[in-house]
């Protein structure tokens, strides 16, 4: 899409401009040419009325983690990491895919996107029929909205609307809180005739538990929960994740003092902050982990790829031992009776 000249783009941070360019040219925040690698072997149909919306954050979890850790290392040494973003954008424009390079790097450490694979298995285990659009999955374009490019966001969301209509999709199960928020709250604000029902994964799981689905962990474990800001304050989903945790046999739920939509503390990665102020964002991640550690839990569960990365980085920064950060989907998957 052509970009209007005369914009005051020089005031927009470079990291957010890169996200924008990637979304507009490649349909994902990382500018990668493939997004569905994680789903290999899962045999998810690419059609169906109910759509599993994986989202950039989870599909590129490894890439994001690797990139952010490089950027943080540069920022901490006072090096101009923005230039590496500029370089990324330059190379991307010339068909050299840096996102994929980071991807390959990341996959060495984390071969699969465990949260997504877990989520798919959990949903299948609850007998929910759904499809995944794989390479055709549109980007929710929320980063455009957060960067200030609301016109572009509106245009992208109209494209998404048309695509989903063509595919006959009536319901979406979202994984990333900010995608879910965009599809559920922002789309109706920017589009006319948007009638797709949007749920988040935790709502779907809680519904199944209410209908009798049982989960049990092989060992007793103390779990605390970190509320992602978008899930709690923007979508109001604070009880569902807690109910899920309380209903899993073997879980002792330990509530953190700063919690839910009122007082939970941001992980330090919101609104694009982490790509504007990488080092500060890291400090804030450690601050949140410190609060969560006070619960004496051995597992921190959350439900957002951004929080997941931030909290893991925070744990590393504090050199905290005996604590694991996990996505809700991973914990629930571990607690499925089929093993």
């Amino acid at each position, binding site marked *: 899409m052509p970009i*209007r000249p*005369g*914009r*005051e*783009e*020089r*005031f*927009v*941070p470079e990291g*957010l401009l890169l996200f924008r360019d990637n979304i507009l040219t490649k349909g994902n925040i990382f500018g990668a040419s493939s997004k569905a690698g994680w789903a290999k072997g899962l045999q998810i149909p690419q059609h169906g009325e109910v759509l599993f919306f994986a989202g950039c954050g989870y599909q590129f979890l490894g890439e994001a983690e690797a990139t952010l850790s490089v950027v943080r290392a540069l*920022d901490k040494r006072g090096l101009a990491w923005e230039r590496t973003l500029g370089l990324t954008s330059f190379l991307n424009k010339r068909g050299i895919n840096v996102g994929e390079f980071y991807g390959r790097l990341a996959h060495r450490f984390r071969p699969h996107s465990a949260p997504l694979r877990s989520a798919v298995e959990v949903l299948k285990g609850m007998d929910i029929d759904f499809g995944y659009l794989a390479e055709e999955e549109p980007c929710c374009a929320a980063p455009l*909205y*957060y*960067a*200030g*490019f*609301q*016109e572009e966001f509106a245009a992208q969301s109209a494209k998404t609307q048309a695509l989903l209509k063509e595919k006959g999709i009536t319901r979406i199960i979202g994984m990333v809180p900010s995608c879910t928020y965009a599809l559920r709250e922002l789309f109706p604000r920017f589009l006319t005739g948007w009638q797709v029902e949007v749920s988040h994964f935790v709502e779907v799981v809680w519904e199944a538990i209410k209908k009798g689905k049982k989960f049990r962990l092989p060992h007793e474990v103390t779990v605390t929960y970190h509320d992602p*800001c978008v899930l709690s*304050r*923007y979508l109001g989903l604070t009880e569902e994740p807690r109910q899920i945790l309380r209903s899993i046999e073997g879980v002792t739920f330990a509530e953190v003092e700063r919690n839910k*939509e*009122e*007082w*939970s*503390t*941001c992980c*330090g*990665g*919101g*609104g*694009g*902050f982490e790509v*504007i*102020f990488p*080092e*500060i964002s890291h*400090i*804030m991640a450690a*601050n*949140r982990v410190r609060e969560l550690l006070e619960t004496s839990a051995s597992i921190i569960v959350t439900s957002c790829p951004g929080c997941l990365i931030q909290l893991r980085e925070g744990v590393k920064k504090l050199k905290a031992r005996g604590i694991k950060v996990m996505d809700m989907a991973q914990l629930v998957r571990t607690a499925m009776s089929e093993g």
Partner: protein
Amino acid sequence: MSKFKAYKKRLKEAARDPKISVALKRAIESYRKNVEEALKRFPHTLKLAEEVRAIKEQSIPRMEELVGQACEAIQKNKGKAFLARTPAEALEIIDGIVGTGKLIVKGKSLTGEEIDLREHLEGRGNEVYETDLGEYIIQLLGIKPMHLTAPSIHVPKEDVAHLLSRVTGKKVPPDIAIEVATVRGILRDKFIRADIGMSGANVVAADTGTLFQIENEGNIRLSTSAPPVYIALVGMEKVVPTIEDAFKVAEVTWRFAGYTVPSYVNLVSGPSKTGDIEKVITYGAHGPKEMYVIFLDAGRSRLAQDTVFREALFCLRCGGCFYECPLFAVTAGHFGDKYFGGIGAIWTAFVTGDLADAAPLTYSCLSCGRCKVRCPVEIDAPQMCLELRKRIAEGS
């Protein structure tokens, strides 16, 4: 982009400074505890805060008219009132009253900070004393305040002792009680000798022309009553229709500022007067003989017309949001310009600067939304920051 880069560098340095994060951690814990207890003791506060929001919703679109009413009321009370459209106009009016070579005692005022009032007066050959303890420390250090209600929040007692030893030429130990007593000693004489007292106001009643000032130290009492001339500088947005409204605004402000019950609330409506001898009203009894109130516009009326951002003028300046901002917790007032935090981004864009000045601040907001939960009048600063980003990105 250079402004942004310089800001980023400052912000990063602040985030690395353990003095800031340690001081803020203590301050945040004590603030949260205080407010929680205060709300338990005075549970009507939350209902009152809703009323205050309604008062602000009604007052801000009528700001121009209400300032007019307030000016009229102040004149009737034998004070003099002015409306300054720009900081330069405000300073010109103040210069006309003050002149040069005066001794001035000042209460802490964000509006004064906004127009660099102290620096201006000093530049014109006046001797100016900040009388709020925190602000006095800031003045001595020659740095900028880091919090609305606690400007020297990041300065530990050891640094204060060092500073006061330098000022008095005597060794002051790092004992907070002794430090406070030392400053009392230094400033006592200034209050008595001062030619002019100055302050801001937390809220102003249009019907009676009454200025409300909330404080604990007693320095505003002395600044506004001991010298023969008193000058107040007040943002236009502070005016509400009635004195009853003003009481509500004041109570909500102090409670969310973390003062359960403040030691003092000053109400000033006019110069000091007496009719005790033959019922002849004579001005300048024990308090000031002259009172001047300058209302400052400086972009506020433009902001009041903007339906997207108008809400920023509802801000009571209680400072509660800062204690909830995870970025403020590690950087204090470095996340800000003249005004801090997410709300500060809006004020910077409309009042103290332009979009270029506001860009670094608005892109610093995490949009986590906790400030809005704390805000007594539920200002949606994160949403306004996103709308500001829109204006920046679209260059309008």
